[in-house]
């Protein structure tokens, strides 16, 4: 337990720690790193213009942190590509990249093909639907990779959740995170419960780890990254950064059901390939979630034992009960 707490303390950052972009660029240049930024898109004309404008202007022109900025598109029918190109992004159709391997439709496909198309030592992925885009969404994620060589993969987390009268605030992810992923991780990969928002669509990673893992093309890509890199390198190479508030589209419950279905496929494939389905381990009884107090995150571990009663028909007292008629 102490190892987990120590990881949480050492590898959880707040974007505010990296506000000095001049220093960050200096450090990046000293280490000879190149950084590529990739936005996967499908019909995002309403938000893509602002994302490209702000991130390119602030992180390429004002502070040269990002060396390459690409939008990789799945075949948008709206003006996504026109708007992105207008504000200076390199625009690619996923189907044009590595055409010999064919074309599959999904966000994971674009992320995977970005590894081939982009040149950076670090690739930062940012979703296209963030309506309150800010440079912190990029520098907050790449900074731990610039500063700490042992870190290879940095996840974003967001939102200071609601205050309780006690002053403690439970750390909330999305609905799928809270009712699907967190319980699954607590049962099968308790250490990964340290990742506060395992499904966040913003993360940065070193090429050397991205090129070694498979990419589900659909909803399971974020989950598979965590499971595969955890299996290869353990928890120590992960980090996570608090990016404060993220405003994005709200999804319908139906859409979340479909998403959960995709994630479960990815999850059970991993359980199967890692031998966890055939040789089912004893299930954990500790449920892990987060609380934050004075800006410090800590894990809250609760024992949840689902005790069971046998069928009533096996109970002697039930069988011998006197029935009044």
């Amino acid at each position, binding site marked *: 337990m102490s190892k987990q707490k120590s990881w949480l303390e050492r590898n959880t950052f707040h974007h505010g720690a990296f506000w000095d972009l001049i220093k960050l660029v200096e450090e990046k240049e000293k280490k000879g790193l190149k950084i590529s930024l990739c936005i996967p898109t499908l019909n995002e004309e309403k938000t893509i213009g*602002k994302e490209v*404008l702000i991130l390119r202007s602030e992180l390429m022109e004002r502070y040269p942190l990002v060396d390459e900025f690409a939008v990789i598109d799945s075949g948008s029918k709206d003006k996504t590509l026109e708007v992105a190109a207008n504000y200076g992004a390199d625009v690619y159709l996923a189907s044009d990249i590595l055409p010999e391997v064919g074309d599959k439709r999904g966000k994971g496909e674009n992320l995977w093909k970005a590894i081939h198309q982009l040149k950076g030592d670090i690739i930062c992925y940012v979703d296209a639907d963030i309506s309150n885009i800010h440079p912190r969404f990029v520098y907050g994620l790449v900074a731990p990779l610039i500063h700490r060589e042992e870190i290879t993969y940095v996840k974003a987390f967001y939102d200071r959740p609601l205050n309780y009268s006690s002053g403690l605030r439970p750390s909330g992810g999305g609905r799928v995170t809270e009712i699907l992923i967190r319980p699954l991780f607590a049962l099968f990969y308790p250490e990964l419960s340290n990742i506060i928002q395992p499904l966040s669509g913003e993360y940065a990673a070193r090429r050397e780890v991205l090129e070694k893992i498979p990419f589900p093309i659909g909803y399971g890509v974020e989950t598979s990254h965590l499971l595969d890199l955890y299996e290869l390198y353990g928890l120590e190479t992960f980090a996570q950064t608090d990016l404060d508030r993220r405003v994005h589209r709200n999804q319908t419950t139906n859409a979340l059901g479909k998403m959960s279905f995709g994630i479960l496929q990815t999850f059970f494939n991993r359980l199967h390939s890692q031998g966890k389905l055939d040789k089912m381990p004893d299930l954990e009884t500790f449920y892990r979630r987060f609380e934050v107090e004075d800006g410090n995150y800590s894990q809250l571990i609760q024992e949840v034992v689902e005790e069971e009663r046998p069928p009533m028909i096996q109970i002697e007292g039930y069988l011998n009960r006197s029935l009044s008629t």
Partner: protein
Amino acid sequence: MPIEQIDSDTFLHGLLNDISGRIEQIRQKRDSFLTDAVLLGEIPSPTFGEGDRIRTVVDRFRENGLDNPLVDEFGNASAQLPGTVGESSILIMAHADSVFSPDVRHEIQVGSDFMTGPGIADNAIGLAAMISLPRLLSDLGIQLRDNLILVANSKSLGRANMEGARGFLETMSLPAKAGICVEGSTLGRLSYSGLGTLRGEITLQVPSDYDWKRFGAAGAISHLTGLINKIREIPIPKEPKTQIVFGGLKCGSSYNTSPRQGTLRFEITSEGDEVIGQMEDNLNEICEQFSAETGTLVNMEVVAKRKNCGIPFTHPLVKTTRTIMQEAGITPQVDPSTGDLNALILGGLPAVTLGLTTVENLREVNETVHLEPLYAGMAQLITLIEAIDQGICEV
């Protein structure tokens, strides 16, 4: 023609010859000021609550390497770009407050040729243009002899009555030789005079002991309607030009209950200060009489009052501005100001207000600025600064 005049004309001619090239250069360098417009526009900044936006402006001044970035006692952010000679200064001011409350979602959408969102035109884009001037001047290879004083002023709109701008002018340490107020709306706007203005609120209350059985008894809405009709009977002179605008009416919250209180907001503008004085007297009399006749409590509060002011149409600053606009393909539309320009002119500074681009849905949540005309708008601003710097705009 005096030699000095020839030099000025020659210099202005040189500036104007280059204006279409300059518009193109600004288009190439647009990203940083469009970015500032979005980042600033997404920070709510209601009048009297501009603190967050002002802090971001000061950070930007600091990042841009300006001298003395600070927030003053009036809540204004200011900084200076030192000139190569630095004997005199030019004041550039853009108001930081907006008419939108923080409850409104401040989200700016960026399209290929437009930006849309609450307050983007009034005045996030003007603010961003002012902030980006040092960087743009440097990109365009322009070195000013004069210092440039940049100010994002707080408390400009409505009840605030230009408190920020007036405060800055009163305490300004570097005397300026001219000033420009920068507004997003609307390209072609040329203000060089401030209209005499009186803004007020009339509050009508139905007292708790009101006799609901009396003849003509009514709730606050009916009474306010009657009061408005009385005010509309005040004769409005054609000369000097005068108008009264009813800008807000707050009263009631249900379908079937007569409200007991309501507030009417109005603004009188006139080219004649004495007319404003007479109308204020008239309004006071109407309120008093209406109160006595209806048994309601009627109170008028003047929240802002300012005199007519201006510089002549023939002033070199105005003349040069018109010439620059025309060369940039902009049709000047003379429009007396009721905003910060008054504070500058009343503070003794020759000044104009310029608009930067064409705008739709002004002061609505879907306020939209067009980007293509913005580059000409920025070119007129920068060229005018250069002209002032060269002494062309002085009497």
